[in-house]
C-alpha cells in the first residue's frame, strides 16, 4: 500500500533548502494520466507558516550547498563521460531554519474517538461511500442465546487491548450514526475480529494466534442513509440482518443502531417484534455490562418473514475464516420482496442462470438464445430498458411499462434489468440492492468480461477491453487498512508550492553520481511519478525482490515521503549490478548508458522477464516504460535512381545528437540561424538544440560507398537517408554526444548548446518532411495543435573530463521551481542556471497528453 501519508518520518532533520516565491514561468505540463495522490500530503497550516518564516530569514543563497572535497577516483573508463565522487558526510546536517518537516504523519497510539453525533457530521477523511452499504461490524447478539451474554461481554472486554478498545469506540460511534449493516455478510476482505472466539453458544474461546484482525467497515456514509435511519419508513434499503458473525465484537462495540440508543442495539431479528428505534441521543462508549434490549433498528417494513433457523455453528464463508463458525448464507436483503425471493433452495442457481443467459452471456449458445429471445413480449423491441421477470419467462420493456403490466397482472414483484443486471422491485418501485444478489451479479459479470477479453483476438480491441473495465476503472471501496489510515489521519492536507516533498538527496555510494542523476530525473518525471505514486505497479517477476520496478516504486515512496534526509539507494545499486553487469563496480560510468540500461531493465521487469529472453515487441508492449519513453524513429531511404522510398520505423528511447566540432559532424548551416524556432537564445554563433535536431533530421546522402539495394530497381543504388520522428514519446530524452572516441582523439566536447524551456517537435516529425523540403522550417502560424509541444523538466550535466568527472542534475519542481541535485545536496537554482548549463542529457515532457483512444487510432494506422 503506497499511501504515503503513512510513512512515519524519522527524526527529521530539516531539508537543506528554502524555496523562494514562485516565478512566473511557462507552466510545466500538469496534465497527467494517473490519479493525483497529492491531496493526502502536507500540512496546510504548518507548511505555510514555515514558508513565511523561511522567506523572511532568507538564508539560502544558491550554491551554498557544496561542501566537502571532491576527490575523484581515478580510473580509466572505457566509454562515455564519467563521474564519480567519494561519498561525503551527510549534508543534511547543514543548518537550516526548518524546525520540522512540513510533513509528518505518524501512526498515533490509539486514536481519540471521533465525535460522531447521530445525524451529525461525517468526518472529512472518510472514503466515499461505496455503492452499497458495507457491512459494519455489528452485534449479532440477536442470534445468540440471551443468557450468558453479559459474561461474554466481560470476557471479551478483558481480552481486548487498549488499542482495540479505542478502535471499537470509534466504530461504535460510527455505527451509531450510521446504519446498521449486518456484518454477517462480511465482504470480500471478510475479516472478522474477535477478541476471542465466541461461538453461537456464547462461550469465549481463546483467541487464535495473530488472529486479531480488524474489520473496519467504518461505514461513515452519506447523509441519506442516516436520514433513512432516523425516519422509519418503508424503503427498499438493505435491511440489516442479524448474523452470528461476531458476537464478541458486538459485545464490545456493537452495531450502531439507527436509533441512537445508548446501547447500540443490534439489527433486527426476524423473531423480534418491530420496535421503534430508541431515540436517545446518547451513545455508550463504555462496554456494556448488561443485556441489552433489542429494538429493531429500522422500522421500514413489517417483520420480515424470514425463516431463519436458530443460530448454530456453521462453516464460515469468506477468506481467512476459522475464528467464528458463522453462516453467511443469506446476506442483508434489499427489501422484503427480495427476501421472499431468496427463500427457495435454489434461488442462487436460478439467478445465475438468468444472468448467464440473458444479461452477461459467456458462450455462443447463450448468446444465440439471448439474441433470439430477449425482446419485449408485448412490443417486440430489444431496446427501452428491457427487463426480465424473475419469477417466470417474460421479457418486457420498461419504458413502455410492459413489464409493469406483467408484474401487476401476475403479482411477480421482481424483474432484472437486462442491460445492467439490477433488480427492480415493483412493490418498492425502485431498484433494490441486495448484497447477495449484487455479489452474484458481480461474479457473473466479471466472469463474462474475463472470457470476452481473453477470447478477443482483435488487436484493435485489446487496449480497451483488456483488462476488463471493472478492473480498469474500479470503484474505490475502502479496505480495512485504508480505513485505518483515514481514521488516523483525518486532517486534509494540501501541497503548497513551498513544500519540499519530492526533493531529497541521494547519497553517493562510490562514483554513483551517474545513477543519482538519472534517479532524480526519473523520479521527477510527472507521468512516471503519477504512475508509481498511485501504486499502479503490479509485480510480475517470479522473484519480486529482484524486481527493479518494485524498487523504483519504493524509491518514489522514499523520495516523496517528506523525509528530508538524503536517501541511500543501496538496494537500487545492488539491483543495477545484478541486472546490468556492465555497469557494476565502483568505477565511473556514463549517465546516458545507465539511463538506457535502467529503462531496459524496467521495461523487461514490467513484464516479468528476468533475463531478457522474451522477444520484445515494442509495438505491442504496454508497459509504463514503453508508454512513456518509447518513440518511433522513422528512417526513410530514398533511392536516387527511382526515388522509391523505403520506410522503417524503429522504437527509440532517446535521441543522441552529434555536436559541432566533432569529427563525425557535418554542419551545413551556420549555427544560430533560425534559432528562434523554439525561442532559444539568440546569441549568434551559439548552437541550439533545434540546430542539432535539424541536423539530425536532415536528408543525408549515403555516398557511393554505401549503396543500398533498392527493391524496385533491384540493384544497388545511391540513396539518401532521412530520420524523422514518427511517433513522439511522452517523455523525450536528448543526449548530446559530448564524448568522442574516434581514432583521432578521445575528448569531451564542451561546446555550450543552448536549449529551450519549451520545445516544439513538429518540424522534426515525419509528417513535416514536405514542408521542410520546401524550405520552411518555421512552424505554420496558428498551428493549433499542442500535441507536439514539450516542456523541459530535467537536465543532467557533466563536469570534468572524459576520464573522470562528476554528474549533477537540475530538476523541475512545482511547475516553476528548479533545484540542483548534487548527490545528497539539493539547492535552489534559477532558470538561468539551468539554461546556461552545459547540458548533457535533456528531459522534456509533453505538455498535452492524448487519450488512450487516440493512441489506439495511432496504433491502428501504423499497422496499415
Amino acid at each position, binding site marked *: 500500500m503506497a499511501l504515503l501519508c503513512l510513512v512515519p518520518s524519522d527524526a527529521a532533520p530539516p531539508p537543506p533548502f528554502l524555496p523562494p516565491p514562485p516565478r512566473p514561468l511557462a507552466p510545466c505540463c500538469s496534465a497527467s494520466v494517473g490519479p493525483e495522490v497529492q491531496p493526502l500530503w502536507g500540512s496546510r497550516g504548518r507548511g505555510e507558516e514555515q514558508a513565511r518564516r523561511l522567506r523572511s530569514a532568507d538564508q539560502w543563497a544558491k550554491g551554498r550547498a557544496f561542501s566537502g572535497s571532491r576527490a575523484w577516483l581515478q580510473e580509466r573508463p572505457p566509454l562515455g563521460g564519467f563521474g564519480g565522487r567519494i561519498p561525503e558526510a551527510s549534508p543534511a546536517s547543514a543548518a537550516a531554519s526548518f524546525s520540522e518537516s512540513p510533513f509528518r504523519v505518524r501512526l498515533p497510539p490509539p486514536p481519540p474517538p471521533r465525535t460522531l453525533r447521530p445525524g451529525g457530521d461525517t468526518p472529512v477523511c472518510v472514503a466515499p461511500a461505496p455503492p452499497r452499504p458495507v457491512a459494519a461490524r455489528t452485534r449479532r447478539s440477536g442470534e445468540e442465546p440471551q443468557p450468558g451474554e453479559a459474561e461474554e461481554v466481560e470476557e471479551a472486554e478483558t481480552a481486548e487491548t487498549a488499542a482495540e478498545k479505542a478502535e471499537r469506540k470509534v466504530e461504535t460511534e460510527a455505527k451509531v450514526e450510521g446504519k446498521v449493516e449486518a456484518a454477517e455478510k462480511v465482504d470480500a476482505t471478510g475479516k472478522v475480529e474477535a477478541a476471542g472466539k465466541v461461538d453461537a453458544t456464547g462461550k469465549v474461546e481463546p483467541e487464535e494466534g495473530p488472529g486479531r484482525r480488524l474489520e473496519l467497515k467504518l461505514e461513515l456514509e*452519506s*447523509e*441519506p442513509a442516516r*436520514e*433513512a435511519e432516523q425516519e422509519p419508513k418503508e424503503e427498499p434499503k438493505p435491511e440489516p440482518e442479524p448474523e452470528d458473525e461476531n458476537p464478541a465484537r458486538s459485545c464490545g462495540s456493537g452495531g450502531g443502531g439507527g436509533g441512537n440508543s445508548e446501547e447500540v442495539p443490534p439489527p433486527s431479528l426476524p423473531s423480534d417484534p418491530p420496535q421503534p428505534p430508541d431515540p436517545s441521543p446518547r451513545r455508550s462508549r463504555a462496554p456494556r455490562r448488561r443485556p441489552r434490549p433489542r429494538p429493531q433498528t429500522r422500522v421500514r417494513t413489517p417483520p420480515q418473514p424470514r425463516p431463519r433457523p436458530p443460530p448454530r455453528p456453521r462453516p464460515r464463508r469468506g477468506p481467512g475464516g476459522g475464528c467464528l463458525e458463522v453462516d453467511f448464507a443469506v446476506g442483508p436483503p434489499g427489501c422484503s420482496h427480495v427476501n421472499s425471493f431468496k427463500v427457495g433452495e435454489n434461488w442462487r442457481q436460478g439467478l445465475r442462470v438468468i444472468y448467464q443467459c440473458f444479461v*452477461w*452471456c459467456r458462450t*455462443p449458445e447463450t*448468446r*444465440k438464445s*439471448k*439474441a*433470439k429471445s*430477449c*425482446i419485449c*413480449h*408485448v*412490443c*417486440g*423491441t*430489444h431496446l427501452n*430498458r428491457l427487463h426480465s421477470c424473475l419469477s417466470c419467462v417474460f421479457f418486457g420493456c420498461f419504458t413502455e411499462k410492459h413489464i409493469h403490466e406483467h408484474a401487476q397482472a401476475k403479482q411477480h414483484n421482481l424483474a432484472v434489468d437486462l442491460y445492467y443486471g439490477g433488480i*427492480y422491485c415493483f412493490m418498492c*418501485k*425502485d*431498484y433494490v440492492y441486495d448484497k447477495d444478489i449484487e455479489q452474484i451479479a458481480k461474479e457473473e459479470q466479471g466472469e*463474462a*468480461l474475463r472470457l*470476452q477479453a481473453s477470447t*478477443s483476438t482483435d488487436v484493435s*480491441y485489446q487496449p*480497451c*477491453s483488456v483488462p*476488463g*473495465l471493472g478492473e*480498469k*476503472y474500479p470503484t474505490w471501496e475502502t479496505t480495512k487498512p485504508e480505513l485505518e489510515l483515514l481514521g488516523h489521519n483525518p486532517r486534509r492536507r494540501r501541497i503548497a508550492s513551498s513544500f519540499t516533498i519530492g526533493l531529497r538527496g541521494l547519497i553517493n555510494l562510490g562514483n554513483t553520481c551517474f545513477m543519482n542523476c538519472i534517479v532524480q530525473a526519473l523520479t521527477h518525471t510527472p507521468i512516471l511519478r503519477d504512475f508509481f505514486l498511485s501504486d499502479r505497479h503490479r509485480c510480475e517477476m517470479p522473484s519480486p525482490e529482484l524486481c527493479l520496478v518494485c524498487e523504483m516504486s519504493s524509491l518514489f515512496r522514499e523520495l516523496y515521503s517528506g523525509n528530508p534526509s538524503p536517501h541511500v539507494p543501496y538496494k537500487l545499486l545492488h539491483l543495477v549490478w545484478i541486472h546490468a553487469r556492465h555497469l557494476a563496480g565502483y568505477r565511473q560510468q556514463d549517465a546516458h548508458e545507465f539511463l538506457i540500461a535502467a529503462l531496459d531493465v524496467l521495461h523487461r521487469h514490467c513484464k516479468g522477464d528476468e533475463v531478457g529472453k522474451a522477444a520484445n515487441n515494442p509495438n505491442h508492449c504496454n508497459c509504463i516504460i514503453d508508454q512513456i519513453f518509447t518513440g518511433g524513429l522513422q528512417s526513410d531511404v530514398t533511392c536516387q535512381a527511382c526515388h522509391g522510398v523505403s520506410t522503417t520505423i524503429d522504437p527509440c528511447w532517446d535521441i543522441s545528437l552529434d555536436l559541432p566540432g566533432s569529427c563525425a559532424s557535418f554542419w551545413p548551416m551556420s549555427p544560430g540561424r533560425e534559432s528562434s524556432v523554439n525561442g532559444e537564445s539568440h546569441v549568434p554563433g551559439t548552437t541550439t538544440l533545434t540546430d542539432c535536431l535539424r541536423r539530425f533530421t536532415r536528408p543525408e546522402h549515403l555516398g557511393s560507398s554505401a549503396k543500398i539495394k533498392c527493391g524496385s530497381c533491384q540493384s544497388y543504388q545511391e540513396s539518401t537517408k532521412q530520420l524523422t520522428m514518427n511517433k513522439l514519446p511522452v517523455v523525450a530524452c536528448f543526449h548530446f554526444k559530448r564524448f568522442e572516441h574516434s581514432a583521432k582523439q578521445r575528448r569531451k566536447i564542451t561546446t555550450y548548446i543552448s536549449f529551450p524551456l519549451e520545445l516544439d517537435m513538429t518540424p522534426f516529425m515525419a509528417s513535416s518532411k514536405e514542408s521542410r523540403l520546401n524550405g520552411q522550417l518555421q512552424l505554420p502560424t496558428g498551428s493549433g495543435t499542442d500535441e507536439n509541444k514539450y516542456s523541459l523538466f530535467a537536465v543532467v550535466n557533466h563536469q570534468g573530463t572524459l576520464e573522470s568527472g562528476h554528474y549533477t542534475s537540475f530538476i523541475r519542481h512545482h511547475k516553476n521551481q528548479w533545484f540542483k541535485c548534487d548527490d545528497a545536496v539539493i539547492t535552489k537554482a534559477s532558470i538561468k542556471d539551468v539554461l546556461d548549463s552545459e547540458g548533457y542529457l535533456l528531459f522534456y515532457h509533453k505538455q498535452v497528453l492524448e*487519450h*488512450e*483512444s487516440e493512441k489506439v487510432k495511432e496504433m491502428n494506422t501504423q499497422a496499415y
Partner: protein
Amino acid sequence: MVVSKMNKDAQMRAAINQKLIETGERERLKELLRAKLIECGWKDQLKAHCKEEVIKEKGLEHVTVDDLVAEITPKGRALVPDSVKKELLQRIRTFLAQHASL
C-alpha cells in the same frame, strides 16, 4: 408469442441487434463505449450533473431511478462527443461489412 408490431426499420434494427449479440460484438462495443466515455470525461460530467441538479433538486431521499433516467437521458445523449459517436459508428459499419450476409 411475439406480437410483431414492428415496421421494416425496426425489423432491420432487430436483425442487426441479433447479429451483434450472437457474435458477442455488442458486449465488446459496450465495453469500448464505456471506456471511451470514461476517458473523455463524459461519465464525470454526467455524474456532476446528477449531483448538482437532480439530487439537489429532489433530495437524495426521494430520487428514484426513474427520475434519474428521465432527467439524465437527454443530457447524456447530448453530451456524447462526436468523436466517440464516429468511432462507434465506424466499428459498427465495419462489423456489418464483415457480416454482409445480413
